[in-house]
């Protein structure tokens, strides 16, 4: 079992995000250049501060959906609204500013393994730092402070000068959460954050995400393919199948039949993580 250090006292001193943002998808369709339609006419409304899971098998369009929210994947038609911004209208600097307000973590952690933990978390300050300052390696003392606090809040402060590649999977995902938190975001996106982790580590990373929602009040959207994690950690569940919303309702009371409808097949043992 990997260490599970929480620094509750440090948590209190962390500057909390201003206000969480709502997310609205209106008739969003994504067609990739190779002709594959990943998302079909999806309309959703997520209130500020909600903890939402997006459940579906691989290929159901959940990775695509989460990426339309920060514009990593542009919507082919329809509009995505995040807080005060219409994502599809943003270009260049305005798009980077929106992304600065939306934290994201990934299945594969997406850390630069040979760079230090500090450098990896500093990535979260990009949208708040002029390029020339990054070029000269001049992080402001405020940025430094934010990076160290973010690391402290996930219990990884003592690894700050180590190489990111030397860490275990669970530790890497916590560094990635610290990177997203150092953005001081209004929205947190997580794309299959625990799919590469063993069950105990997966549970601790999921509860880190749940704390981001309850303690900082962020809107959290997390992609999952495991039904028990969705039921346990999120309040609302959106089911995707072949790019269409097939379920939208409370997560804890979703029945096995609901999951079978989302998966499009009977439930198997690999649909649950277990303890």
């Amino acid at each position, binding site marked *: 079992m990997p260490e599970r250090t929480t620094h509750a006292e440090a948590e209190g001193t962390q500057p909390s995000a201003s206000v969480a943002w709502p997310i609205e998808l209106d008739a969003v369709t994504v067609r990739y250049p190779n002709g594959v339609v990943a998302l079909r006419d999806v309309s959703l409304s997520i209130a500020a501060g909600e903890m939402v899971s997006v459940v579906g098998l691989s290929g159901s369009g959940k990775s695509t959906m989460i990426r339309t929210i*920060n514009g*990593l994947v542009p919507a082919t038609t329809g509009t995505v609204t995040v807080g005060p911004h219409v994502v599809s209208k943003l270009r260049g600097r305005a*798009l*980077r*500013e*929106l*992304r*600065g307000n*939306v*934290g*994201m973590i*990934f299945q*594969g952690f*997406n*850390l*630069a*393994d*040979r*760079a*230090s933990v500090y*450098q*990896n978390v*500093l*990535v*979260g300050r*990009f*949208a708040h*730092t002029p*390029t020339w300052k*990054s*070029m000269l*390696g001049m992080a402001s003392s405020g940025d430094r402070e934010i990076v160290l606090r973010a690391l402290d809040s996930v219990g990884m402060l003592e690894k700050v000068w180590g190489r990111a590649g030397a860490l275990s999977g669970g530790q890497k995902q916590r560094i*990635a959460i610290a*990177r*997203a938190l150092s*953005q001081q975001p209004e929205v947190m996106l997580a794309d299959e954050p625990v799919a590469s982790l063993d069950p105990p580590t997966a549970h601790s990373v999921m509860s880190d995400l749940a704390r981001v929602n309850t303690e900082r009040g962020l809107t959290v959207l997390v992609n999952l393919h495991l039904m028990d994690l969705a039921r346990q950690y999120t309040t609302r569940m959106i089911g995707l199948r072949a790019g269409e919303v097939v379920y939208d309702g409370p997560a804890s009371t979703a029945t096995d039949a609901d999951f079978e409808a989302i998966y499009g097949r009977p439930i198997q043992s690999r649909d649950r993580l277990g303890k």
Partner: protein
Amino acid sequence: MIAALAAFTALTTIPALGGVEIDLESIARNWSNGAQRVGMLLTPDWSILPRTWEPMYQTLSMAMVGTVISAALAIPLSLWAARPTNPNGLTRRAVRFSLNVVRAIPDLVYATILVAMVGVGTLPGVITLVLFDIGIVVKLVSESIDSADSSYMEAGRAAGGTQTQINKVTALPQSWPVMASQILYSLELNVRISAILGIVGAGGIGRLIDEVRGFYRYDALSAIIIEILVVVLIIEVISNGLRKRLR
């Protein structure tokens, strides 16, 4: 495969087909000439050594300065020549094309032309080394960035970073071991190449080589060759040691 190679070799060496002429008989015909030279090479004349210190120092300085300047230029160029660190196809292809041109020209050609342009001395030698080093370092480093995992780029973009920020803060430390290793390799190559450049007037120990060869002092030449060998080996040992510490 081997048969094809043999056939190709045979075909290209038949003069009747316009192939290159390889006259093996000439080795036997000129044997006595060769034997005399080999004899002199086998008895090195160490008295030349004091005259080599100055040009040898010059050669090493050229190699060092050339490596430092080329490294300063090759680091940003490598990032611009690789796909993950420069998604803009137009500028990436422009950088790659220019470097292909730079690499296509042999070092001695650069040295000869530069000696004519800027005069005899170490300056044309250093410029030659810089051009040569940039060609190989940028190619090897950018290819290694291309083939390495670059998923951290997506995180940098998702955080709202510009490509320059992502490159400086993550891509540079990520590819630094490869860069440093190739830069050390270019230093090794530079010592070898700069020993030769003097022959066309680009400074260093090569000038002395050209001089003693002109006087048929093959025994002195042999002493200089052994000295270069020792210097190259020392540089290799040092750079191997440094490279191990990079891992």
